[in-house]
């Protein structure tokens, strides 16, 4: 090793020293420990005991686990498309170059700034079955059909759609990302499409969406990862981790949390965490495969 190679190695390690400590203590050790716990019986109070694949085998027969997985997938299937449609539509509207665009962008973005605990309070109030403003507005409309509006978060059939609705309100971030993607689309493409006689919808479908497909793909992956781990708003709005009402909002992360920190079954919870990781990797690969022919990189 030459003298200046040695010097570079020394200063390089010096600059990276904090990270070498941080990576080891706060990431690498926890990852390895978690993997070990997932094959052990572990309650924090006593040292872990190796039980092989016991946790994973038990998980396969745990009806509550399957219920939480099903709930999470249903919620993802509701909130992900809804959020994408809303954020892409808003970005398309903002990208029309009309006056006041910055102001409208601020309006649409503002809700995503509200701390999740605070917006959970707000939507808890809006969704309130009796006095909530949503039902006050809906009551006269559904009364035409002789019906009563749902009680949203108190109704097992409507709690997941309610949470999905709330999530669509906070799509400001993905909207801004889409907008940045839209502004990168060369203007000439639209002009030549228009010369070829393409109307608005055809231009959106054949020019805009293919051109921003990498951004859509990015937001899709982020959305999958985020909604599979949804926790805070559900914990706040349903009053804890039991997924009220009737376990209809018992999502994966909530069951994992209560298993680990209420039941102190840390090994079992770690096994759940690893299955979640596999699920995320699996769904990401699936999304990548399905979108391969549709995502166009420039």
């Amino acid at each position, binding site marked *: 090793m030459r003298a200046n190679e040695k010097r570079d190695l020394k200063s390089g390690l010096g600059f990276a020293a904090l990270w070498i400590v941080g990576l080891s203590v706060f990431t690498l050790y926890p*990852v390895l420990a*978690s993997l070990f716990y997932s094959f052990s019986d572990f309650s924090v109070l006593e040292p872990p005991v190796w039980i092989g694949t016991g946790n994973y085998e038990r998980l396969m027969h745990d009806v509550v686990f399957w219920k939480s997985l099903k709930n999470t997938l249903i919620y993802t299937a509701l909130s992900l498309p809804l959020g994408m449609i809303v954020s892409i539509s808003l970005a398309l509207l903002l990208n029309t170059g009309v006056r006041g665009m910055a102001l*409208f962008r601020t309006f649409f973005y503002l*809700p995503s*700034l509200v701390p999740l*605990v605070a917006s959970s309070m*707000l939507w808890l109030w809006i969704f309130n079955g009796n006095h909530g403003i949503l039902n006050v507005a809906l009551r006269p409309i559904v009364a035409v059909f002789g019906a009563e509006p749902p009680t949203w978060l108190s109704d097992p059939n409507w709690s997941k759609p309610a949470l999905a609705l709330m999530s669509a309100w906070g799509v400001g*971030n993905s909207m801004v990302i889409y907008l940045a993607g839209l502004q990168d689309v060369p203007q000439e493409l639209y002009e030549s499409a228009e010369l070829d006689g393409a109307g608005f919808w055809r231009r959106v479908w054949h020019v805009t969406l293919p051109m921003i497909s990498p951004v859509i793909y990015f937001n899709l992956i982020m959305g999958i990862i985020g909604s599979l781990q949804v926790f805070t708003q559900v914990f706040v709005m349903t009053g804890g981790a039991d997924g009220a009402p009737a376990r209809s909002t018992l999502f994966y992360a909530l069951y*994992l949390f209560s298993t680990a920190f209420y039941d102190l079954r840390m090994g079992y919870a770690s096994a759940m965490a690893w299955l979640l990781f596999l699920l995320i990797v699996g769904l990401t690969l699936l999304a990548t495969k399905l979108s391969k022919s549709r995502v166009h990189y420039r």
Partner: protein
Amino acid sequence: MQPRSFFARSVIYALLAAGSFLFLFPLIWLLCTALKPVEQTMAMPPTFVPRTYVAVLGGKQTEVTRDYQVAEPSVLVSPTEGVSQGRPLLVPRTLYDAGQGTVKQVTYEGGEKKATLVRVRLLKMVEPGAWHVTERSQTKVRSRELRSDVLAESEITSSVKPRWENFRIALATMGGKSVEEAEGSVTALETGVGEDSAVSFWKFLSNTLVVCLLGVIGAVFSNAIIAYGFARIEWRGRNVLFALTLATMMVPFPILMVPLYSVFKELGWIGTLKPLWVPAFFGSAFNIFLMRQFFLTLPRELSDAARIDGCSEWGIFWRIILPLSKPVLAVVALFHFLSAWNDFTGPLLYLTRKHTFTLALALQNYQSQHGGTQWHHLMAASAVVTLPIVVLFFFTQKTFIRGIATTGIKG
């Protein structure tokens, strides 16, 4: 895609306006509710503007609450006999016999319906649309002591009056005081809640600021130092370590959650704020990546020239690279502040005693204890937790939007 026709532009504006309404309405509703007296939060039909109602009760101008609106022609009477003697009673006019001076009262005895006639004194005739009003008082909590009356709409004067004291009361109750105590109608001694079990709102705020500010300092400096090592020095093992760094970004938090808890427990940090800010001083994969990408764009010649002048590696970093990197430092600082302010899972996991709570956790704790009826206080507290972030956004809007657009994230 610029719309040309007037029609297309009108459609776009209509859609933008409708969208703005849907996105802003919940926030407006939050503020409306936060400024209302409690009975107006549940008024039917709902009102937007917080109001105060004043009427003459017992010969005196009194602030009143409008309880309900009378639907049918009625009479207000005062029974001269029986259990409710002397208390004003509102009865439908069909049950009132003016000639006899009686009202028919239906009671149930042993499951059997029984009608009795009660002698009454007529106080007044009441037309539909009149309001049953009750004196609004903070000191007399028992409703029997409160004066009430039935008055026509024209006899009640109403004026717009936001109740700013909701904020004061909400913040005091958030810290653990009872609503009555916060309103000043009873003292701490009477409620039996000792002073020490109540934590001041300012304590929650200062906890949050400690976590946010120390975290920001840690995140900005540690990630800049580490990223410099990855971007501008070539050393053996660098690329392997960087690849490992990127790989760890894939690991979801639930995997780390349990072992991290054990690590912090070993360190004796559970129940303190340390788990929430100390790790920021040791870098994070995403911020390292973000800053490295920025440092790579700075011309190599800058470092070379400084090296020839005898500048040390640290000197190059501190005096040349760092001052040129303000945009990326600002993005990292802003997003770290935001995610630390909003974080709920971390405080939920690691904080055990109330005086260490951050605002997010204190707000949730408040809701779990007082939720259900005190919507005006809950909205006021939520507004207080939200406001600093909104103010921060308006001062740093450019950094914000650029940050999200280039990184694709918000904390």
